[in-house]
């Protein structure tokens, strides 16, 4: 295209505007009058550009190079006390940390996907004033961000979630505070047993039978801080360990310090 050579957007010269004649309507049979054109979304004027946009969307099959570029580091451990997950990528660690440790309730060690859910949990489960206030006013806040409704009971809130927000009735992050009975209806083993707690922890399934050590109710524990793999005996071991007085606490001068426990500290 024949553009003047020095043309650039940084050019800012004050140019006088040519004098304008007063606008008059067009004389028949001529009909032209300057007008600003407007096109609506489905107009065929947009066809080529839209096609181009969609080709871009569809071409987004990523390729192998993406994965190989992810930097691997030498294996390292999660530094949270009690957790010994091991990682070899930073992204893997980041995701683990965010899933298990970031929004964690310091009272019962459950973790939550968001600050909002964590705050709601702490308020409803661990705030002693909450129960008192809930008797007088609607305190159970809707879980959906942006919805300001409050309810007088957990059940009312669940009904609202299901009816208005079309949430599943078994929404995982809305467990009621009372412990459910741990007997699960065993479906005839035809296909898959969906009622099996999907916390992907064999131990928790075992655990739901007993556990007076746990602070939380004995329904399937959301997010134990113990590592995943390991035989059941070591798990019970850890439970016992938990009830002990930490070795960092000394009772008087005569108490021996140091590594008192024979068991491996995690």
């Amino acid at each position: 295209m024949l553009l003047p050579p020095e043309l650039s957007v940084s050019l800012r010269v004050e140019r006088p505007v040519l004098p304008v004649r007063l606008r008059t309507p067009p004389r028949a049979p001529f009909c032209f009058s300057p007008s600003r054109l407007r096109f609506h979304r489905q107009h065929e004027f947009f066809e080529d550009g839209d096609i181009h946009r969609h080709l871009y969307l569809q071409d987004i099959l990523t390729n192998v190079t993406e994965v190989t570029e992810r930097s691997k580091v030498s294996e390292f451990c999660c530094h949270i006390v009690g957790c010994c997950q091991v990682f070899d990528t930073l992204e893997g660690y980041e995701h683990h940390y965010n899933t298990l440790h970031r929004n964690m309730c310091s009272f019962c060690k459950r973790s939550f996907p968001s600050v909002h859910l964590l705050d709601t949990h702490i308020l409803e489960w661990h705030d002693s004033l909450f129960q008192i206030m809930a008797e007088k006013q609607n305190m159970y806040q809707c879980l959906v961000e942006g919805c300001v409704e409050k309810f007088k009971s957990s059940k009312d809130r669940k009904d609202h979630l299901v009816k208005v927000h079309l949430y599943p009735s078994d929404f995982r992050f809305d467990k009621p505070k009372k412990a459910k009975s741990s007997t699960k209806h065993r479906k005839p083993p035809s296909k898959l047993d969906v009622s099996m707690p999907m916390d992907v922890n064999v131990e928790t399934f075992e655990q739901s039978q007993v556990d007076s050590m746990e602070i939380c109710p004995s329904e399937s524990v959301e997010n134990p801080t113990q590592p995943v793999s390991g035989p059941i005996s070591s798990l019970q071991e850890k439970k016992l360990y938990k009830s002990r007085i930490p070795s960092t606490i000394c009772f008087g001068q005569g108490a021996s310090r140091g590594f008192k426990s024979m068991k491996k500290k995690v």
Partner: protein
Amino acid sequence: MWSRRSCRYRPDASGLEELRARRREQESALRKARRQQQLVSKRLLREDSLVNGDGQAGVEIASEPLSEQEILQLLRDVQRGTEERKKLLSHLRKGLQHKETQQKFVRLEGSMQVLIGLFTSSLANVQMEAARCLHELSHSSDPAVAEACLPSTSYLLTYLSGHSVEFTELCLYTLGNLAVESDAVRKQLLPQGIIPALASCIQSPHVAVLEGLGYVLSQLLQAREAPTKIMPLVLDSVLPQHMLRLISSNLELGMGVAVEFAWCLHYIVCSHVNNMLLISQGIVSTLVLLLLELASMMSKAATEGLELLICPVLRCLSNLLAEDETEGCKVQIQDERLLVALFLFMQYFLQQHPFLVQECLWLLNNLTADEPIFCSAVLTLDLLPALLQLLSCSRMVTLLALTVLCNIAEKGPAYCHQLHQKAVLPSLLSTLALSDAQVVGQSLELLHLLFLHLPEAADDFLSQAGLQALEQHQDNPQLQERVRALSETYLQPAAASLISCAGASAAVLPSS
């Protein structure tokens, strides 16, 4: 997404031809879909992992479809944890790349619930792999498969407020794929609070998350019911001001982000739901400055794909300029640098992406219609030759270029004088030789304006065989009135005066 474009596998010559053929097919399918108002596309994030340690980079690992038994076994094994769960899920995921496997999977009773259970587990790597499986399902071309993913949406939305970039990104693209699937899906997503969730998520600093978010939003906004059901909610939230911020900041890293939000804004603006709100938030100056910045980037190397950003921005500005005066104040733009930007874009994209030329001309029309500043600048900045060059391009481009010239001529004698001086007539004569009635008609309008303000133009037109050029259209019903009017009002008197002038001078000359 944007950054991954450059990593694409580059095939050899034969592979290239295949690729081109595939692309042509894709394109014609898309055109057909658009004409039926069913233009829908999904995005896929897929990482093909290496085989052992010595797998080669660039080799696609072929995955096999899975049988029902195999799927069942995989799921049972995952639940029991007999093998490493991540590996099992990986295996499932690869199978789910195939449509038949996807269909078998969703038909198995309880399979989706198991998958969702894994997706919501506390084991990060299992959760991630389950999310990838869900993502493959969301991308399915079988609507039944994608709809089977509906029970996962409340969790997908919950996880948007998480902090893992990769996981959040995956959730966003999955949501985007599901959102575009059907009315039924959106009827669930909206009450589940997708708009507030996105409004929180847009405050993330991570480019990958923002790009994914832009994608979801663009999918929602393209829905048929969007102008009535979705756009009001979006406009009511903090999303517009963040979109405006993100579209213009950090273009180096966030180009993909800007592209997504530019298209979002285009869908909103061209639906004319509440453009006054956007105008009050400064959309016009933001977009003008953005175009100026993009124009200054034209000379640099990394301009691939810029048309994807420029196109929707041009459209927004053009439509905003055309906002009805009665709805509020008329939009005025007076920055001449925009004119320069437009011509730079047209020059740059004329060969490769001609569709952008017509989009630029549309904006140019809307700028020159009422503003003498721009009309004047076209002439004084010496941009007319470039504009005249466009008269020999596609029909739409020619028509728009003629309309811009008419806008300029309409401003009065000073403008016509410049047009005439800079040789507009020869170009007009070429357009008169075309057969398209609308193009010729617009040329006639331009001639009328020239002759009206500048009588001597008629003389010059005659001397360049203009009358003959006109006469070929005198039998065309769409054109004949105007042809006759031009002849009778301007050309015949001009011809007569020429003859009489000649006669007079002949009389003056002494007869030898």
